[in-house]
């Protein structure tokens, strides 16, 4: 099956309208539902799905944008490493525009740094093989979805005996962030659309304890419009019936146990560590760092940037947006001082950021 026919089946307007009708029939009272993943936020805005839901359902946008939650401090470390003349610094494209405290990776490149966009960590390993006289550093950011390829790059570099490859790691995990959101006194979220791609890797056995502890139903949800309305319908049904379960509305990709081979690679490479989340703060055991036996691939140690510490400055409301407390257009800077061209905050920069989704697809009139 090609990509075209695979996706078009999940964009069939008649079927989608049927599910929307069922949602309208089911809902009797207001509910706040959070989609965790930035990819889902963008799909919702891209298709204008939020306008087609009954007014009782409010979708709020979760912290599932890896670019947005990467702390300023780590970006500053990346900038220091990328500016070194002996380094080829590789990153996914979105990271290049996220400002550190002084400049961004684009500026480093314009000033002569060798900063390259790669689509896969394994491309960075290839670069390391091709450039033995250079140090190749990969910015390993992301949630559970990017962890397997990023981990694989380290294992591959190890088996190739590469001494010129290292990773700057900022891997984070979804369940601890949900814990932080649900445990906050300001929490408004009553149901979750779980991130389909994350669950493809990790399965969804981590979520029932969370659902139970906070009495919040959840549905594993995909990214096509039909996936999204199906996930919303399942969560609304549970909310209306007072049921608290974790259901799978993305069965074509997700199994309860997830991808065991991918998990094995992750756990061979990474161990749980505390991680700082931009806009939220430090969440204990919320991410992954390299295991002690792989410390030679740790770019922070190799380039001695562990002692760089940067305080974040309060300028926009990214933190509240990442926790679903506020919507992007409720920020006074939205669309005025803060646009994708001159972002005040990471949610406006990233292709998966909630502010950028609002700006691109549903700009509220500002003039």
């Amino acid at each position, binding site marked *: 099956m*090609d*990509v075209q026919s695979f*996706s078009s089946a999940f964009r069939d*307007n008649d079927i*989608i*309208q049927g599910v929307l009708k069922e949602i309208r029939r089911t809902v009797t009272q207001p509910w706040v539902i959070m989609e965790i993943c930035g990819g889902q936020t963008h799909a919702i805005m*891209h*298709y*204008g*799905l*939020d*306008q*087609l839901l009954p007014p009782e359902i409010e979708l709020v946008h979760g912290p599932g944008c890896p670019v947005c939650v990467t702390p300023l401090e780590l*970006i500053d470390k990346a900038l220091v490493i990328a500016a070194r003349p002996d380094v080829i610094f590789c990153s996914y494209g979105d990271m290049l*525009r*996220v*400002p*550190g*405290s002084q*400049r961004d990776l*684009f*500026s480093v*490149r*314009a000033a002569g740094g060798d900063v390259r966009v790669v*689509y*896969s960590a394994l491309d960075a390993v290839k670069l390391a093989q091709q450039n033995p006289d250079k140090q190749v550093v990969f910015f390993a950011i992301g949630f559970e979805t990017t962890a397997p390829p990023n981990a694989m790059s380290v294992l591959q570099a190890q088996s190739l005996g590469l001494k010129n490859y290292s990773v700057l790691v900022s891997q984070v995990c979804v369940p*601890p962030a949900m*814990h*932080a959101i649900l*445990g*906050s006194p*300001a929490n408004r979220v009553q149901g979750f659309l779980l991130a389909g791609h994350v669950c493809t890797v990790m399965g969804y056995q981590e979520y029932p304890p969370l659902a139970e502890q906070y009495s919040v139903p959840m549905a594993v949800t995909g990214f096509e*419009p039909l996936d999204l309305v199906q996930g919303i319908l399942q969560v609304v049904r549970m909310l209306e019936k007072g049921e608290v379960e974790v259901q799978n509305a993305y069965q074509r990709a997700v199994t309860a146990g997830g991808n065991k081979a991918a998990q094995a690679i992750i756990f061979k490479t990474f161990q749980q560590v505390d991680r700082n989340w931009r*806009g*939220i*703060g430090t*969440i*204990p055991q919320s991410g992954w760092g390299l295991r002690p036996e792989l410390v030679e691939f740790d770019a922070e140690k190799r380039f001695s940037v562990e002692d760089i510490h940067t305080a*974040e*400055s*309060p*300028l*926009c409301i*990214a*933190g509240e947006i990442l*926790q679903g407390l506020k919507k992007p257009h409720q920020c006074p800077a939205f669309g005025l001082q*803060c*646009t*994708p*061209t*001159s*972002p*005040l*905050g*990471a949610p406006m920069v990233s*292709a998966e950021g909630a502010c950028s989704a609002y*700006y*691109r*697809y549903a*700009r509220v009139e500002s003039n």
Partner: protein
Amino acid sequence: MLNDKNLPTIEGPVCAVPLRHAEQIVMGHGSGGRMTHDLIEKTFKPFLASDPLAAGNDFAAVLSNNDGQSGGRLAVSTDSHIVTPLFFPGGDIGRLAVCGTVNDISMSGGKALYLTAGFILEEGLRVEVLEQVLASMQAAAAEAGVQIIAGDTKVVERGKADQIFINTAGIGWIPEGRHVGGELAQPGDAVLISGTIGDHGIAVLSARGELGFEAEVQSDVAPLNQLIQAVLAAAPHTHVLRDPTRGGLATTLNEIADQSRVAILLDEAKIPIHPPVRAACEMLGFDALYVANEGKVIVIVPEAEAEAALMAMRSSRYGTEATRIGSVQESPAKRVLMRTLIGGTRVLDMMSGEMLPRIC
């Protein structure tokens, strides 16, 4: 594991400092999108200003003499080409350099007549490569019916340029009484496109081997002057002609909405995209609406002439898949909206930053 005792405290809103890239040029300034627009407005305009530049089109329409009486006008345009690789499926830098300027001239509604060509060559370039590029320029100029009448060659040290950069400038003639421009779209007009979008950008990317898979996509690079003359003969009240090159369909429509102070409403289901282009965009996270074209034209005409314009395009070899994609309305002014496949509506903005560098 987390429990209630070690839950993080919420630090409150924190964010990064803005970065405006006002001090040095970054790749995004060449994207054809918002950053290019800002660079022109804030940096170029204070120094280089004239009435034709202020019109905001890719061509300048100027009087042929100073008496203000004679009918026709000259159309003048210039364009530099820096594509990598030099040769890609469906075209090469030579064909691109000729077609790019022929098309810019044609968007004035005028007839393209003459081109000039300036070459910047990198030390070490093989002469046979240069010959291939020149042969391609010769063929494209013959097809378009234009003459290349002046040229210039410079050579820079190895590493100071990438093989060949080509600048072309063109001159055309706009007959008396013809007024076509991005500022002339009117509420009630139909918005047409001459064929599928995104082919050029994806073809070039595929030729670079950056896709990680093979896409069977040919660049659409083509001279559109004959197609456009056919449209103007069939739809003499055509308001706007614009080729959606860098920044793609979405960015170009934003420019038109801005110049004409109108809203443009698109119907997503009507926008033609070749399946392999759609698939490549899906896999890479691109939006085909922002991917460059080099052989397509947006035609905005009064409703009464829409069918005639479509038929004229479809009778040209470069317009067989021409179709209607939307309409012009009064408000919200300066906005491009799109009805999505599932019936929602979303705003289409100009492209921000850099998407695919060095594609034309």
